[in-house]
């Protein structure tokens, strides 16, 4: 199980050596990055059957937790670590002027994303989070336009602000408990953190880590960044990185801050996210911003889902998150040639019939039309919200319904304009084969999910019940009991 560390170490060492390798052979430098990511994905996939129903913990440096840092892998963590590796591979930066620096950054993104999913130490999570942040600044700025520099700088400021707040929260947790290991924190939390200080620490970390998860008050960067960044990078950020940040918040919630007040804070912020995101998407007039704002709305649904207490919440949230993980990158891949005003897209079905058909499929699933997976995910959230028999959760259900109605309105408006014939206007350019192939792959995955929905749901429920079990985490890591 020691191989778990390789998921982080291998891409990192490759990234460090890439400039050196490039001096020796450009060809080798071009291919070594994707090959290493293939290798780490293979390692991750080979670990999957070994995990089964149990989870594993790795003690880095050979020091028993809580003294050293431990990695923890259950199926949820491994799934997201794999999603990062494979996602980076699928959305590998295209060969441009700065391909060397971009490939280096992409490798570091794969390493840090996997590490963020696997880490079991609060401060280590903070460091990984900062690493993911710095890598994203570099990748966004890679487009080298004035707008992308300005958007990156504004994103950097919001993100550093959030990271400093998260660090303040970590300081408060350490002040109250004297430890950073999540398993030991989980043991100490009921006696040490079940108070105002614990709740404030959670709120500070929620705002801090919520920056990347597009949480309501700290998501001002989203529309600017997704409109100016290279579309592949936007796909990675919206599809994968936002889920990793969400995963951290869920872990903290399940293990450490198991208080009703914490759930309520998340529920309210999630509702505000859905309302503001969907309204802004409805008003958006260009393609990139429309899907950027819709992503804020979708993340809001996930926050609402994860705020349902117990295993049911993790199950529902995970279902929505996995669905979004497949749909959003595909949307951004289609956006590569469709950036710009929605009016320009009239008649796009003629130049790119496959692209238009894919968009319709993705949109239908996003809105939640049966029998596509998006429908089942949303249904799961609604059923569980209704089951809470609490006014606030009911309000959450209504907000999601309203959001879906708005979504249906603006997505259909766009989709119908694709098939609207207008002879005066020039149609947008056809998609590049590579983009279209990747998007089709994701679309095919979505269709496969629709067909195999029952076994898939069982699998996700298994993953969720494993992730929602506080005991399993504590027993697997098994930190030494200190006086």
């Amino acid at each position, binding site marked *: 199980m020691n191989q778990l560390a390789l998921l982080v170490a291998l891409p990192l060492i490759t990234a460090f050596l890439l400039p050196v390798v490039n001096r020796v052979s450009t060809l080798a430098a071009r291919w070594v990055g994707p090959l290493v990511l293939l290798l780490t994905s293979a390692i991750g996939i080979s670990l999957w059957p070994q995990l089964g129903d149990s989870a594993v913990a790795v003690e880095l440096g050979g020091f028993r937790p809580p003294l050293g840092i431990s990695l923890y892998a259950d199926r949820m963590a491994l799934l997201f670590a794999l999603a990062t590796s494979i996602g980076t591979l699928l959305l590998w930066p295209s060969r441009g002027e700065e391909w060397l620096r971009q490939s280096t950054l992409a490798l570091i993104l794969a390493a840090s994303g996997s590490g963020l999913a696997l880490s079991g130490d609060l*401060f280590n999570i903070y460091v990984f989070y900062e690493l993911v942040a710095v890598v994203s600044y570099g990748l966004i700025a890679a487009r080298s336009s004035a707008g992308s520099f300005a958007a990156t700088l504004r994103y950097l400021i919001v993100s550093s602000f959030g990271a400093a707040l998260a660090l303040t929260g970590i*300081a408060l947790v350490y002040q109250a408990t004297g430890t950073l290991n999540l398993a030991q924190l989980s043991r100490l939390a009921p006696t040490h953190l079940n108070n105002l200080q614990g709740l404030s620490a959670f709120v500070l970390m929620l705002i801090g880590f919520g920056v990347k998860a597009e949480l309501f008050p700290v998501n001002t960067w989203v529309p*600017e960044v997704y409109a*100016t960044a290279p579309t592949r990078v936007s796909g990675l950020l919206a599809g994968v990185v936002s889920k990793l940040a969400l995963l951290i918040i869920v872990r903290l919630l399940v293990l450490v801050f198991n208080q009703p007040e914490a759930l309520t804070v998340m529920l309210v912020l999630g509702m505000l996210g859905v309302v503001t995101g969907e309204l802004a998407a409805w008003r958006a007039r260009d393609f990139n911003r429309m899907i950027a704002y819709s992503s804020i709305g979708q993340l809001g649904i996930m926050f609402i889902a994860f705020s349902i207490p117990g295993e049911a919440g993790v199950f529902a949230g995970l279902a929505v998150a996995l669905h979004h993980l497949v749909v959003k990158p595909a949307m951004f891949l289609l956006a590569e040639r469709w950036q710009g*005003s929605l009016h320009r897209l009239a008649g796009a079905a003629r130049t790119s019939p496959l692209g238009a058909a894919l968009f319709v499929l993705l949109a239908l699933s996003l809105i939640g039309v049966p029998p596509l997976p998006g429908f089942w995910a949303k249904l799961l959230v609604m059923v569980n919200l209704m089951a809470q028999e609490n006014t606030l959760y009911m309000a959450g259900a209504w907000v999601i319904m309203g959001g879906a109605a708005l979504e249906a309105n603006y997505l259909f408006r766009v989709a119908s304009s694709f098939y609207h014939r207008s002879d005066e206007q020039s149609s947008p350019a056809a998609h590049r084969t590579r983009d279209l192939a990747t998007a089709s792959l994701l679309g095919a995955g979505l269709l496969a999910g629709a067909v195999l929905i029952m076994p898939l749901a069982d699998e996700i429920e298994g993953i969720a019940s494993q992730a929602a079990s506080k005991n399993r985490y504590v027993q697997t890591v098994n930190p030494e009991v200190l006086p």
Partner: protein
Amino acid sequence: MLDTGLVLYSGAFGLILIGIAGIVLSSHLVRIIFGVALLEAGANLLLLLATWHEGAAAPIIVAGRVPDRMADPVPQALVLTAIVIGVGILALALSLALRVQRAYGTLDMHEVRRRMEQDIAGEAGIDLPSSSHAPAAVQTARQEGGA
């Protein structure tokens, strides 16, 4: 009697609050970056104070003598890490500020945002209603320092 712990904690929370105020209320980019630096300094101090006790010795063994009570080395290592991370991000932020100023000729946050929205809209082929934004002359007049 003066409580040293209370003074130190007030210092940390004071720096955090001043830093946040700097980020939220300033409009000049360099001043906002100053605010981020202050906020980080406050968070670092708070982290170091977390398990601080009066009268503990530094966690180093000099010439084989082991002190009775040593300070907690973990927050010290964490703050070390946080300081180094901070300087990396600071350098990147300043580089970006340099490029933004070169492109837009201003460092005023609102003006930069307005120009960026114009750029995005221009690329997308939408004309932006200019009435919702303050006229450029007012914005530049507010800008400090000058380019």
